């Protein structure tokens, strides 16, 4: 503050402008919107608790949650008004309140979350926590997968191998699709639009969805194909991510070198190879490493649909959790460790390469 005061004041007579006052009418409109939202929440409420507002000569009442929501909306609008926020931004703030109320009430978020402490103290939470914090390392290191002669740690190896194969194939196809998807490197607008559309479809199906599909098409672990189904699922998952992210990197490459390549008479493929690829190589490496991390993580989740690797073992152990939590604990801790290691490794590679 003192530093500001010490500065010699500019000898300008022009008055500094005040921040403009937002128009009152717009704010009244926002209050009307808030009232409409309140009315909607009132009519659609399912909770019967009601708040009373004694005003001396009359007592008003309103359903508890919609009223709290309404008061929050008014408070937000008041805050916006006093900070002279533009009506558009105030509308945005109001929308956040309205939508979070609407979405939260549809899943009974507040009611359910109030239940959580009692659920944590009752039930077997204590046993579970004790189990998780006393993981059974000898199970992880020395036992076999139930009913087979395969050691548990071998499942980790399978998971790692699935991630490696899926990353390499998925990222390579993703690179090709990214080239086709970006208007900068693609043959024409039509190709680029088509590939983008296909890519959106690929991305709209989550990894577990792909795993279910492939397990259904080609058979899961029961036929010894669990690893393949998981790899194919991960490949589709990786293609979606890499094509999207890298396509955007390609959109943003410096057009200068591309123009220079054009000016030498290079054709499109040559231009993509000599000018586009080197420019996006760092991003590509970075995305590939990121995707590899995701694959390690995802393969644990894919176990739920009965594919191979540590994920399969995890879901089997979860299935027999009634016999103790130490095995699940061991797998989860090991998962944290492996993901950390992969994270460190990819950070190291990124530093070396870029």
């Amino acid at each position, binding site marked *: 503050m003192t530093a500001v005061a010490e500065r010699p004041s500019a000898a300008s007579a022009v008055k500094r402008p005040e921040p403009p006052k937002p128009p009152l009418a717009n704010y009244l409109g926002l209050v009307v919107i808030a009232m409409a939202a309140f009315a909607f929440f009132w009519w659609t409420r399912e909770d019967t608790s009601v708040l009373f507002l004694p005003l001396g000569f009359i007592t008003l009442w309103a359903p508890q949650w919609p009223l709290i929501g309404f008061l929050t909306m008014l408070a937000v609008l008041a805050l916006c008004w006093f900070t002279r926020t533009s009506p558009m931004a105030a509308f945005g703030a109001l929308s956040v309140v309205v939508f979070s109320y609407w979405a939260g009430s549809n899943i009974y978020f507040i009611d359910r979350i109030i239940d959580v402490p009692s659920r944590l103290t009752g039930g077997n939470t204590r046993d579970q926590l004790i189990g998780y914090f006393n993981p059974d390392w000898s199970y992880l290191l020395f036992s076999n997968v139930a009913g087979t002669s395969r050691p548990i740690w071998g499942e980790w190896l399978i998971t790692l191998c699935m991630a490696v194969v899926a990353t390499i194939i998925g990222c390579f196809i993703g690179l090709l699709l990214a080239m086709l998807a970006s208007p900068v490197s693609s043959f024409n607008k039509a190709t680029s639009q088509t590939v983008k559309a296909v890519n959106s479809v690929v991305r709209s199906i989550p990894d577990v969805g792909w795993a279910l599909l492939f397990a259904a098409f080609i058979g899961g672990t029961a036929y010894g194909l669990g690893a393949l189904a998981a790899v194919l699922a991960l490949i589709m998952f990786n293609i979606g991510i890499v094509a999207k992210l890298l396509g955007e990197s390609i959109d943003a490459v410096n057009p200068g070198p591309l123009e220079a390549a054009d000016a*030498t008479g290079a054709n499109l493929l040559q231009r993509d190879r000599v000018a586009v690829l080197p420019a996006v190589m760092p991003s590509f490496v970075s995305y590939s490493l990121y995707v590899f991390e995701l694959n390690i993580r995802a393969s644990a989740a894919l176990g739920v649909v009965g594919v191979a690797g540590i994920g399969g073992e995890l879901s089997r152990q979860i299935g027999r959790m009634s016999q103790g939590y130490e095995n699940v604990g061991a797998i989860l801790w090991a998962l944290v460790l492996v993901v950390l290691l992969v994270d460190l490794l990819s950070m190291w590679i990124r530093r070396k390469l870029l």
Partner: protein
Amino acid sequence: MITFENVDVVYPNGFKGLDNINLNITKGEFVAIIGLSGAGKSTLIRAVNGLVPYTGGTLTVGETVVDPRNKSKLRKLRARVGMIFQQFNNVGRISVLNNVLIGRSAFTSTWRSLIGWYGAEDKEVAFQSLERVGIVDKAYNRASALSGGQQQRVAIARVLAQDPEVILADEPVASLDPPTARKVLGDLRRIQQDLGITCIVNMHHLDLARDYADRIIGMRAGKVVFDGPTGEAIDAVIEDVYQRSLTAEDIATVNVPVSLEDIPAEAEAEAVAAGEPDGNS
């Protein structure tokens, strides 16, 4: 060698970039194009290799009529017409040699380019080009790790690797400091004379144009308003091109900071106080 016959360029938004240009540039000529910003200098140069499609008239390079719609013909033409840019436009992350080899693209089959396997002759051409511009020792450095003057030499070598008949240069030295600008332009001039290459160069600085060009073309609002040998481009003529009287900045390039505005006022004051008016270069 290069003929413009009633050439017009109308941009997609309807703006007329070139208006009825008639020019005849002979083989081996070094032509400087001058004019204020927005006069259409870049448009003129880019029309020659089809980076900007012209919309009326006829543009011929050698025996070939430039046809902006025919992609494969355009590529064949571009193989013979090299282009140098103000921002160098090298691919920063690859080696100098690989940048120069981009100039061989039109003579290399696509699959060879894709796997990055250039033939021995291509490499030989690339090295010779680097020798001509005097940076052969940097062949395996990353292009982005070079100074501005060296980067523009890489760009010239890339163009030379095309073995071009024509070199187009769009403000090739505008990003360089004045002494370097002179050296690079001098190199370009020497190589152009050695190899008999036709050169069209856009320039900001009148005295560079006077020192290096055979012929000066002045442009204003998409039209050619002066065209003559360098000797005829006297101040009065140039003032007509610029539509104002010449200032010292239009002419001088050496020993004057190009843009005094770029130097922060405080730094300038300090330099003056320390008794070295141009000690900030």
